[in-house]
């Protein structure tokens, strides 16, 4: 059985948090789906609430402090990402956006991403498509087709509403697992490896 790393970013602000609850469900389903494909998964969760001040500091100082650096490295080095945010004012939360703002712009290139969101009303559900999907498109990540939105009615009502959410979670997790299992494990990008381009080539200039 081969192994992959899943990073989970949850931007929920409360504790307990419905955003984290959705993230956990997506994670459990993804592990299961990967297992069905013969892949075991290591999961690392980044609770952005714990990094709220670190993120603000990063904005003014230009670098991630020691505590935030761990979170950034976790996400940048993962084979797959589950990213879940509450929807505020028709879009992802500022905390969520700030985290992706301070990531290196190439950190998620090609990384399969499962997007999730929670909100107080189902009318926010398309925020996944008009806000999160373009964000991950910009970062050149591979967002899976199914994004999972959970409104209050998805949590309420027990069995009558449960299957719908569970079904979406399973479908999205399966899509993520297909992509993650289909790629070799992420090789850490080392900018300090001996250069692929020799200095003589740099001197000759582009197109030479």
């Amino acid at each position, binding site marked *: 059985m081969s192994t992959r790393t899943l990073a989970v970013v949850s931007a929920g602000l409360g504790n307990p948090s419905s955003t984290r609850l959705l993230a956990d469900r997506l994670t459990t389903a993804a592990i299961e789906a990967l297992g069905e494909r013969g892949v075991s998964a290591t999961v690392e969760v980044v609770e952005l609430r714990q990094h709220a001040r670190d993120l603000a500091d990063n904005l003014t*100082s230009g670098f991630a402090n020691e505590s935030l650096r761990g979170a950034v490295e976790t996400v940048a080095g993962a084979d797959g990402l589950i990213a879940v945010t509450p929807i505020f004012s028709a879009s992802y939360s500022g905390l969520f956006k700030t985290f992706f703002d301070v990531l290196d712009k190439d950190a998620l290139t090609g990384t399969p991403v499962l997007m999730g969101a929670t909100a107080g009303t189902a009318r926010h559900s398309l925020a996944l498509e008009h806000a999160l999907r373009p964000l991950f498109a910009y970062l050149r990540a591979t967002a899976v087709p199914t994004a999972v939105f959970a409104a209050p009615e998805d949590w309420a009502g027990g069995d009558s509403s449960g299957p719908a959410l569970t079904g979406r979670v399973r479908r999205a997790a399966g899509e993520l697992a297909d992509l993650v299992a289909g790629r070799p494990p992420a090789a850490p990008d080392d900018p300090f490896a001996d250069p692929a381009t020799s*200095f003589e080539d740099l*001197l000759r200039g582009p197109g030479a």
Partner: protein
Amino acid sequence: MQFGVFTVSDITQDPTTGRTPTEAERLRAVLAIAQKAEEVGLDVFALGEHHNPPFFSSSPTTTLAWIAARTTTLQLSTATTLITTNDPVKIAEDYAMLQHLAGGRVDLMMGRGNTGPVYPWFGQDIRNGIELAVENYALLRRLWTEDVVDWQGKYRTPLQGFTSTPRPLDGVPPFVWHGSIRSPQIAEQAAYYGDGFFHNHIFWPKEHTQRMVEFYRRRYAHYGHGAADQAIVGLGGQVFMRRRSQDAVDEFRPYFDNAPVYGHGPSLEDFSRETPLTVGSPQQVIERTLGFRDYVGDYQRQLFLIDHAGLPLKTVLEQLDILGEEVVPVLRREFAALKPAHVPDAPTHASRVAAAGGARDATVHTGGDGVTGRTAEAVTR
């Protein structure tokens, strides 16, 4: 090991008085700081180059020439000279001229500059920063080492039969450091030529510095200039000192909290833990600075930033007194005792002339002017 100060030439409001110095005041202050640096026994003064407010230093060679005339031992350098937006021909001429005026007490540090709009103001594009640094520097070296240059490149007009004057003093051009915070290509460039590598080492965690220096050292050895631990490394640093540690913290805090670079963000305590910034007693600065060697190895030059964020001149001069009296003598002794014999000192004009086999006059005498065919001698005869 060389010790000195470097300034970014910012004009910043003093947050404790609400007063912002004028350009003239700040410029005078920097001249006073440079002279004081020599007076208290420091080795190096380095000055940045900027072409936008709130900085005043657009013309480092003019400033350094003034300082050269009023000092006798101080090594003069830049931090940095913009190799991307300056014409390499003008850099070759200006710094050779300065080298003559300063009796060889000149080296310079190449940098790309990090302010997007500055590039187009000088006809360039920040996206070509690395390419410009590579092409321009390659030309600069030829202009200093070859008397007559034919050259064609991508970023400036071609040269045919061009001689950059004055020729370098004693036939040996100024030593060059390459400054970069996180571009491996620039560390590679320094390594390729066997030049020095300077990491500004401020405002960022030490891990970045460490990785850049390690890479430079490895590539320096790869290109056959010597062993990795013989590569020429310079570091920045940022300090504020008072006899009592708490006095230093109390006095520096308003400057820190409002500094353009990091103000309104992390606390002074967090920032001091995360970066090499040291605010405290002279002894604390000594210990922290000696600790730099633990992660970059034996290095050749240590420059401190002591005059930014609106600190008044009087305070900066007091910092220089403390550096000269209490800090640098101890650091000099301790670093020297730790340094193995095979690790070289920072290159100076004297050591470079000796390495070149002695001084030679490099003057290029023209055979005759191309229009009249007459030489200067022929005219006076």
